[in-house]
């Protein structure tokens, strides 16, 4: 379980998240809100990319402030733009990067790389340059690079924003099939319509926290879409 207790974050004296307390226990959690509402800050808190100014964030009891390495292994993070997440030139090298950082042995790295590449139909591209993949393939590569690190939770920060419909459907399908807990920050309301829970951020606070139809309804109303 990921738990936030009375969490506040500020940048240059500007409050970007204020007194948020949440327990994340469901398997599929959507996070929505207008631009600048604090949802990306919230996402970055979950795996310790960002530390709270006040309050605590714990992952299965591990504090993100003191157990950064353990938390990073438990909580994977998929960014909006896969181009900035893929750090090695070749597809198979990039998948291995996170496992090397966590100290996996060579045989495990090779086996898990093969498994991940085959899972997302990237096997034929394994020795290709990542730059020549399509947007959807790049996002699947980014997801693979996170999955092989064996996280219990995966946070997605607007994973379909830059994709066309075909690629969006591919990535959406991949998220739905994950065994891990997925926390998806998005503007795509269709993507989270069948999730277990949706949290709505507004003015740097939690405005609604409910099942999708209720939470999305409140969000639409707040945005004037009724």
């Amino acid at each position, binding site marked *: 379980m990921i738990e936030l207790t009375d969490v506040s974050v500020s940048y240059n004296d500007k409050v970007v998240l204020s007194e948020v307390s949440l327990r994340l226990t469901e398997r599929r959690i959507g996070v929505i809100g207008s631009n600048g509402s604090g949802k990306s800050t919230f996402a970055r808190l979950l795996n310790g990319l960002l530390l709270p100014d006040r309050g605590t964030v714990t992952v299965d009891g591990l504090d993100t402030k003191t157990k950064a390495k353990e938390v990073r292994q438990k909580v994977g993070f998929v*960014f909006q733009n896969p181009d*900035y997440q893929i*750090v090695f030139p070749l597809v198979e090298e990039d998948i*291995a990067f*996170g496992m090397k950082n966590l100290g996996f042995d060579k045989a495990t790295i090779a086996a898990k790389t093969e498994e991940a590449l085959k899972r997302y139909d990237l096997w034929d591209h394994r020795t290709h340059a990542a*730059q020549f993949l399509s947007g959807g393939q790049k996002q699947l590569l980014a997801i693979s690079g996170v999955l092989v690190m064996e996280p219990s939770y995966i946070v997605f920060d607007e994973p379909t924003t830059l994709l066309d419909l075909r690629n969006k459907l591919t990535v959406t399908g991949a998220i739905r099939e994950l065994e891990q807990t997925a926390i998806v920050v998005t503007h795509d309301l269709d993507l989270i319509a069948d999730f277990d829970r949706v949290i709505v951020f507004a003015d740097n606070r939690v405005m609604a926290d409910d099942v999708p139809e209720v939470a999305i309804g409140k969000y639409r109303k707040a945005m004037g879409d009724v």
Partner: protein
Amino acid sequence: MFDLYRPGTSFLHRAPAGGKVLALFVLGTLAFIVDDIRLIFAGLALTLLLYPVCGLTLKNAWAQIRPTLWILIAIFIAQAIFNTWQLGVFVIARFGLLLLLAGLLTLTTRASDMIDGIERGLPFLRPLGVNPAKVSLALSLALRFIPVLAQITREVREAQRVRGLENSVIALAIPLFVRTLRMSDDIADAIEARGYRP
């Protein structure tokens, strides 16, 4: 230098990455010490011969030279005007040899192997405050992000053209600089999120 790995089974593909990096360093230094043009041309011929031997094509070799062609031509013209045309030929042959050798390295070596090799070969720099892991990651990022930067440059240039700023270097440089800085923040976050600890 920034062309990417081509899978293969040649002796150079199988050679240890650290040894290839060291060989490039030694041969590159030699190319700038030797002042006999015949030796430079012999080196060029041998290097070109290695391309097909390693399962690569002469097109691959040309791809290493092509991006710098205008720079090589400018160097030749400058040398021909201020010194002699023979010296111009000599200087560009040297650069060409260096580019082809570097191309052989990147075409026959996975970036990850090269980086591991460099990391293993640089511990002697630790007492000077240089972290080999950071150096090798920086090299990997250079290989990976040069095409991304080229794409960003194209996007910014197109955006400026739309606004009628066709030939303004500043109009290109400032947004490019800002976007690159923002990108570097995202990349740093991504590396950290994947458990990197130098």
